[in-house]
Every structure is written in C-alpha cells, then in structure tokens.
C-alpha cells in the first residue's frame, strides 16, 4: 500500500512532531509512506477568504505531488476536507477527481481503511477530545450533536485503544473553537472568546491534554492556554496514537 503523506503548511513549519508521529504510525502499521517534497498547501486559507479563483496553481501543484499513490493521508481534517470538496483542475480534472476519491484524514484512514482494532500505545493522562468542525461536520468523523441519529466517534474509537488514557467529558461536545482560518484575525474578539469557552469546558472536566485531528484548532487554543499560563497542553491525536515512542 503506497501512501503519499500530505503535511499541511503550518503543521510542516510549526508542529513537525505531529507530522513525524503520523509518518511513524503509518509505517508501524505496515504502510509504505512517501513524502513528496515539493508540496506546500491545500489552498484553503485563500479559498475560505473568497479567493478560490486564485487557487488554481496551488491545486495544480498538489495534483503534481500527489498523483499516483494508493492513498493520500494527512494529519489534518480541515485540509483533507478542503481537497475533497474543492480540488479541481482545468488541466487535468481526472487526476483531481482521483485524488479527491483517495485522500483521507489520519483518523478515518485508520478506522475505515486500515480498520485497526488494537494499538500499541500508552498515554496515561486525562484527555479531552476537541471535535474540529471540519472533521466532524465535513468528514463525519463522529456523530453531530444537532442530528437525531445514532452516536459514534472515530477519534474516541482510536483513543479507547490507548492504554492508560482517560477521555474526559464536555458540556458542549462539538461547539466550534473559533479558529475559522482568517476569522481568528479578522474577528479576533469573538474568536478568542470562543477558544476560551472551549478551554473552560475542557478544564471544568479535568482535562490535562486537549487533542484533535486538527492542529489549527489546537494552535489557536494553545495560544490562549499559554497566554494564561495554563498547565493544560494541546497534542495532535497522531502523537497520542504513536505515543509509545514519545519521550515524556
């Protein structure tokens, strides 16, 4: 199974450990993973700001990097969703369509494609799950609280395989953290308020770590946590699932 590893721009620059954990985890589970070195970004920041019409060259670069793999996997729900919904090409729509059909976020790749039911992982901490909106309502990684439908959660399913880990509860299971791309700058006041409220929900329930399939949400919450000198840490879910190799 040949996997093309897609590492989002800000993960690459600011959170390389999450990328390393993703790579190691996939390899441990038997995949042959390549990292196309000329990759940059999925184009979402521009598209969400109304500049989708400027993303063509970004899209073409993505297609160039990621054609020819069995799967493309990324440790980022929002980037994967963006590619699934918006990757198109005037030059090669067939290639774009193929990629859209085989790109997966890490959690869903593990539960739906590799279908793992055990993990050799150890993370003896209280962990709160932040359901990123793109992961939740976009990729359907878990049931959405608004719908009258049976409950399920892919992130929870995986975290339940990690020894020593206790999942903490939430008052509002899936309220948005307020990152929202450029929203976090353009509407700074509301964005931060939303982030603070999510953090309070987690800390009220005793979380020591907040995890998510999306580092954008975690980066935003981390900024607030650090500004307030909190002991609570953020951690991408890949690092927990790969945790037998974390030096704590």
């Amino acid at each position, binding site marked *: 199974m040949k996997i093309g590893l897609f*590492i989002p*721009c800000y*993960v*690459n*620059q*600011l*959170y*390389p450990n999450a990328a*390393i954990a993703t*790579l190691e985890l996939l390899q441990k589970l038997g995949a042959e993973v390549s*990292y196309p*070195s000329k*990759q*940059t*970004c999925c184009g979402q*920041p*521009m*598209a*969400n*700001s*109304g*500049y989708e*019409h*400027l*993303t063509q060259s*970004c899209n073409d*670069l993505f297609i160039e990097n990621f054609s020819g793999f069995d799967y493309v996997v990324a440790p980022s729900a929002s980037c994967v969703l963006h590619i699934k919904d918006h990757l198109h090409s005037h030059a090669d729509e067939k290639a774009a369509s193929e990629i859209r059909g085989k790109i997966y976020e890490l959690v869903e790749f593990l539960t739906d494609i590799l279908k793992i039911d055990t993990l050799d992982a150890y993370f003896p901490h209280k962990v709160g799950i932040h359901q990123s*909106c793109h992961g939740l*309502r*976009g990729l359907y990684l878990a049931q*959405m*609280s*608004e*719908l*009258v*439908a049976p409950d399920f959660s892919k992130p929870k399913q995986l975290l339940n395989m990690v020894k020593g880990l206790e999942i903490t509860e939430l008052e509002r299971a*899936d309220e*948005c953290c*307020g990152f*929202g791309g450029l*929203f*976090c*700058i*353009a*509407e*700074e*006041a*509301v964005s*931060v*308020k*939303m*982030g603070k*409220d999510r953090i309070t929900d987690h800390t009220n329930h005793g979380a020591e770590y907040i995890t998510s399939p999306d580092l954008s949400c975690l*980066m*935003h919450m*981390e*900024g*607030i946590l*650090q*500004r307030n000198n909190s002991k609570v840490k953020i951690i991408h879910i890949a690092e927990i699932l790969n945790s037998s190799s974390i030096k704590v």
Partner: protein
Amino acid sequence: MKGTQDHATLAEVFNRDEDRVDWHDGALWWIRQKRDRSANLTPQWEELREAASAIKSNVISNLHDYLLQFEDNLKKNGVKVYWAADAEEHNQIVYKILSDKNINQMVKSKSMLTEECHLNEYLADRGIDVINSDLGEYIQQIDNEPPSHIVLPCIHKKKEEIGELFHEHLGTEKGLSDPTLLTRVARNHLRNVFMTRRAALTGVNFAVADTGEYVVCTNEGNADMGAHLCEVQIASMGLEKIIPERKHLGVFLRLLARSAIGQPITIYSSHFRKPRPGQEMHLILVDKGRSELLARPDFRDSLKCIKCGSCMNTCPVYRKSGGLSYHNTISGPIGAILAPNLDMKKHADLPFASTLCGSCSNVCPVKIPIHEQLYKWRQVIVKEGYSASRKTFSMKAMALTLSSPEIYNTAGKTGRWILNHAPFAINNKFNPWYKQRDMPDSPEQSFSEWYSKNVKKS
C-alpha cells in the same frame, strides 16, 4: 453610528463585557438544548426535515403557478390582494388602505418583513401610529432599537433594563424587574390598544395555495387579539411563504416551534381564510429581492427559510456577538446569506462573520446548506469587488508563495527564524493574534527539513 460599523467592530464592543456575553451565550445555548430535546422526542425527525426541505424545493420550482393559485383563492374567499415590488411600494399600499378609511392608529403583530420595510417609520411620518404588540417587539420599539433576534427580539436585554424602560414609558415603579409583573403591566396596556385600534397588521408564517388561507403563529395571542377586534386586517407576506396544500401544514407546524424554542407547537396557530362579517381583509404579496434571489442557483435555497431562528441559537458567533452586530433586520447565519442579495456593499462583511462550522445547516428544519452558501457568498463578494484591496494583495502574495515550493520553503524558514530570534517583530500590538494569544513556539526545523535529513531515500 451603528449602521456603518462592520460585524467585527460591533462584536468587539459586545465582547468588552465578558459576563454579559456569557449570559447571552448561555441563554441561547439553553434554547438550542431545548430544541435538541424536543427533536429527540419526535419520531422520524430527520425525515420530517427532509420532507419540509423537499416541499419547499417544489414551492421554489413552481412558485409562479402557486402564487396565481393562492391569489385566485384569496379573492374567492373575499380577501383583497396586492403585489408590492419593493419596500416603498409595500408601505404605500398599507398607507393607502389605512388612509382610505381615515385610520390613524394600527396594532401590529410580529412581521420581520415589515421591519425590513421600515413600515412603522414610514407610517409615523404620515401621521399613523403603529404599536408592536409582541412583548419583545414592544420593548424594542419603546427603546427605539431594532429586534436582535427574529423570534426573541430582546434576548440581549436584562430584566432590570426592561424594568427601567417600563418605568420611563408606562409609569411602573422604579426598580421593578419581575418578569411576571412586567408582563401583566404590558398585558393591561396592550389590551387597551387592541380594544381601540381599528386596524391590525400581521405577518404570515405559511400561506396555503390550495385553500387561500394563511397561518399566523404566536405564543402570546397578540395576532388574534389584533385581528379579531379590528375592522381592517392586513397581512404582509414575502412571496416565499407559500406552501402548496393545507396538509403540508402538518409538516411545518411540527417543525417550526420545536426548531425555534423546543416547544411542540406555538400556543396559537391561527388559520385565516375569510373576513368575518363587518371586517375587511387585505393581503400584500411582497417581492423585495426575492425574485432576484430565485435567479441565483447557489443561493435560492435560502428562500426555503421558515424563520424559526434555530440557526441563530446554535451559532457560536451569534451567541457571542449578539444579533445587533449583524446590522440587518434578519441576523445570524440566515441573515448572513439573505442580506448580501439585498445590499452587497452594506453587508459584505456578514458571510465572513463565521467560522463555517456547519452547525446551522444541521439544525435548519428545511435543510438549507447555510454554511456552504456562506462560503459561496465569500467568492461572489470578492469577485464583485467588495473585498478590501489590501486583502486582495496579500491573497495574491499567498497564492504565489503556495504555488512555488521554493518560495514557500524560504518563507517558512524565514518565519520560523523571526519567531525564534526576533519575536518582538511579531509579538506586538500590530499583530491581532497576539492581543490575547501567544504565538506558537517555533521549532528549529520544519518537517520537510527533518525528513530530508533523517529519512534515507531508497
């Protein structure tokens, strides 16, 4: 002046009082929870939403014939029918109906449409006094402020503030803030208004094409008190309020109050069909941008809206910024997708007042894909030139950087170097991120750099 400030500015002001934000946010979240409980108690809830959505799709696709059918039945029932292209024409029609009968006072029940048309002001300028009889709207009226929520007009006000308004306008005791006592005072005052006004105007929740009747839903009973006591009853409706058959009311009345406030039905769901003896009934069909919205394939589904407000209750941005931050009669997520069609320049900021979280689309009883339309409006707004030019410049720079691996890698390395060695360049008051958040720590190497050093290529 509030009308000229954008959502972000107004929201920042709203957020200066954090306790108040928590209170506002908590009140609306509680209503969202009531909606959830109510939905979970309703068998086949998701099928009901699907049916409502499909009925409204049919309505939009056959609106022309339904409007003719509705008009025909209204006339057979003895109701006078008018068509208004815009707010001005609507207001003129109402004025003429009243002035023809020498009426200079009217009582109104909830109508977002007439609020959008600024009907009260128009009539006041011409010597006709209009009182809003819905308690929340009455409170907003005496405070000279528009409603902040389409269902809960003064959800942003505290009872002490309302008590102060009643003291000033109705002579209640200073400091009185008990909701029951205040409501009783309003009851007595408005009862006299109902008794003495010869004209009443209502909105329309649902207009049934095959019977020519229309339904008005309230909890307070104010629409009925106005309508059954008056000589002249006027109903104002947007074209999109049509539903095809009476039996479809079963679907919509099961969804409306549950979605709005978690109640199985509004206390009063009144079906008006014929005038009573000695009374005139008039109905005004209003376009005001609706036929234009019908022409937009990406946005016409917003015409399905049944004005329940559930999108507002679930939206974290709405809850934490307040309806008045949206500078539009209809605020929140649905407001953000309706307003740009009415005035793109004035409301260009609204589709950006969102994180695109998608919660709104999930609670919408008619399944409008609100968050998808917000994304699409952003593309239109930028293309039509309503985006700040400096934003366009930086977006073009971003597009260039992200389409070139070399520029991207250099930019990344530079950014990390600055964070590590010259943080003061970024950690300052010119960086909005930095106001209440620390910047992320910067690793010495990116993943790309780590990979090229550590992973042997085969």
